[in-house]
């Protein structure tokens, strides 16, 4: 019943039944080119439109925070007489007079605040502070967390047990409660330190900022430490590392080739996602009045200051509020994109 007479409509020539050459055979094998982990990840990242837009947004925000203020005609602490509470693009009487006299006056794009300071530059400075806090705090967390985590994983045994118990304890401590307390408590010692010889820089950086960093250094590294520890442990016990060792590959090469390539993806992702969370916490503290000191603005304190005048000057509130959301959103989306690109195993 399976009889299949040679009735199909193919024209068969005798030479069709000659053996095929090796080249002919090989031409049929379509091999997809193999690409390195980083190249593959970069390709996936570049193809991810959301992540690319996030990068652009972050770069633009950085330009406005770090570069533009240097050329901006106003200063964040300069209080202009008679220029209080100007609406966006509005001029004070004095400036109006100067314009009529033929002078060019740079507009107050976002208006001014109740003390007569240009709001646009304050917002730019505010996002500079927020970004600086986010980046430095994340740096601190990264260093402490990965050092602590890898030490625990490296030594293992009792050292690991004790170190991780400490992490457990810090982990369950309600962080915001302690942060609020710490930033209050550190105020005085830092004030003293500022006056001590050789520590004048404390005043420049701002003692509240420093106390925020100390808080991050004390509390926030635990998540990173846990992550790094589990990564290192996993890699230490993974079969491909054992296999590499069995093949006689040296320690240096194992660390370089296996540990780093496998760990760095996760590390980059966690770090990127840590930045928005640091910015988040800073804005929270600033909003409660425990962040950077006046006259330095931060996006959180700008929003906080604007609440009372919300009825009449809502834009003073919305601009910093939306900007901080945008910054956090962009970093989050970039982090998600990096994870999808470099750390597929973390997905879900």
């Amino acid at each position, binding site marked *: *019943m*399976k*009889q*299949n007479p*040679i009735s*199909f409509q*193919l024209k*068969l020539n005798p*030479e*069709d*039944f*000659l*053996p*095929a050459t090796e080249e*002919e*055979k*090989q*031409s*049929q*094998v*379509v*091999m*997809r080119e193999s690409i390195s982990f980083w190249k593959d990840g970069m390709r996936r990242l570049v193809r991810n439109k959301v992540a690319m837009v996030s990068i652009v947004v972050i770069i633009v925000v950085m330009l406005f925070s770090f570069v533009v203020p240097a050329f901006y005609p106003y200063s964040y602490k300069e209080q202009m007489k008679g220029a209080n509470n100007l609406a966006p693009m509005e001029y004070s009487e004095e400036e109006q007079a100067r314009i009529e006299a033929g002078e060019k006056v740079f507009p107050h794009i976002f208006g001014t605040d109740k003390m007569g300071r240009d709001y646009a530059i304050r917002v730019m400075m505010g996002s500079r502070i927020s970004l600086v806090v986010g980046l430095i705090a994340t740096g601190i967390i990264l260093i402490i967390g990965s050092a602590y985590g890898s030490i625990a994983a490296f030594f293992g045994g009792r050292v690991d047990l004790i170190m991780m118990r400490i992490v457990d304890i810090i982990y369950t401590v309600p962080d915001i409660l302690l942060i609020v307390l710490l930033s209050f408590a550190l105020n005085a010692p830092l004030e003293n330190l500022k006056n001590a010889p050789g520590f004048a820089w404390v005043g420049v950086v701002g003692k509240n900022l420093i106390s925020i960093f100390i808080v991050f250094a004390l509390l926030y590294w635990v998540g990173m430490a846990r992550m790094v520890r589990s990564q290192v442990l996993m890699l230490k016990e993974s079969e491909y590392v054992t296999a590499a060792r069995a093949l006689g590959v040296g320690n240096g090469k194992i660390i370089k080739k296996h540990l780093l390539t496998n760990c760095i993806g996760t590390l980059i992702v966690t770090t990127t996602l840590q930045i928005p969370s640091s910015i988040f916490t800073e804005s929270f503290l600033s909003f409660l009045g425990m962040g950077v000191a006046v006259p330095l603005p931060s996006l959180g304190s700008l929003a906080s200051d604007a609440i009372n005048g919300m009825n009449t000057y809502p834009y003073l509130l919305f601009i910093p509020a939306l900007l901080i959301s945008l910054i956090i959103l962009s970093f989050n989306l970039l982090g998600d994109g990096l994870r999808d690109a470099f750390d597929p195993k973390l997905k879900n």
Partner: protein
Amino acid sequence: MSEYLVDIKNERLSFFTPAGEVKALNDVSIQLKEGEVLGIVGESGSGKSVTAYSLMGLTAHPGKLLGGSLIFNGHQIDQMSEKEMRKIRGNEISIIFQDPMTSLNPVYTIGNQIMEAVLFHTDKNRAQARERARELLELVGINEPDKRLKQYPHELSGGMRQRVMIAIALACEPKLLIADEPTTALDVTIQAQILELMMSLKERLGMAIIMITHDLGVVASMCERIAVMYAGKVVEYGTAEDIFYNPRHQYTKGLIRSIPRIDTREHERLVPIEGTPVDMLNPPKGCPFAPRCEACMKICLREMPPVTSFGEVHYTQCWLNQKEEMEKGAANE
């Protein structure tokens, strides 16, 4: 009604992935009578599991049945609604999966999961269903069934879990049991036990079995009919005898050469099949096996080979066989 319990004709099925269409099944035809054991052999990605899943209406998401007819026990599977399929699944056809470690729901007890199938397909009440579950555990050779019923999957070993999977599959005494590489994830010693159990259950319950495996040794000992699959096609189909003693397709020959045999002389080396499996996203134009075939001819690279039959059951899809048959035919004339 067909004389066959399972009658798959010219099934074509593709997965529409973001990277393109993967033609997972290309003109697959398989028949199986009641109480028979069919082995489907092939390497990963050859379409053996896809064939079986489609018979249960379990084709995974981007997969789509494009053509052909699937008949099981008189039901036209490819025409049935999901609701109708549900009455058949777990009742008339059951399946055992490859990895017993992940195939049981971790948060429910063994008893709960066996009873689920019983309760769904029969009128039994909970007490009766529990009694049935206990019976089933005994049937699959699990000791202390009363204790096991209350245990969670993670408390059982891999072999035990596979026995539980078999118990679930047999809950409603199906006509057909599909075993998707049931022993691949198990220890070698356990493998034999599970296979033995399946065969004895088959004797007792009289069901047909489709055994999917990449292990020729397994099919040799169990199956009456064997389908050898390569890149979504059945390249050779026949009785166990045909396949083992009279293999015609180059791929089947290669597979048989690569099994270790007890009667090999010392120093005789196993012959592996050279090359790598085809990239299913960009399948070759002609015979998919051609690039790895020792006897590859020019036409093999250009055209899909037709079916060449060697009798009632045995057939291959290979240009070489076609050529030989044509020459034989010409010589006879």
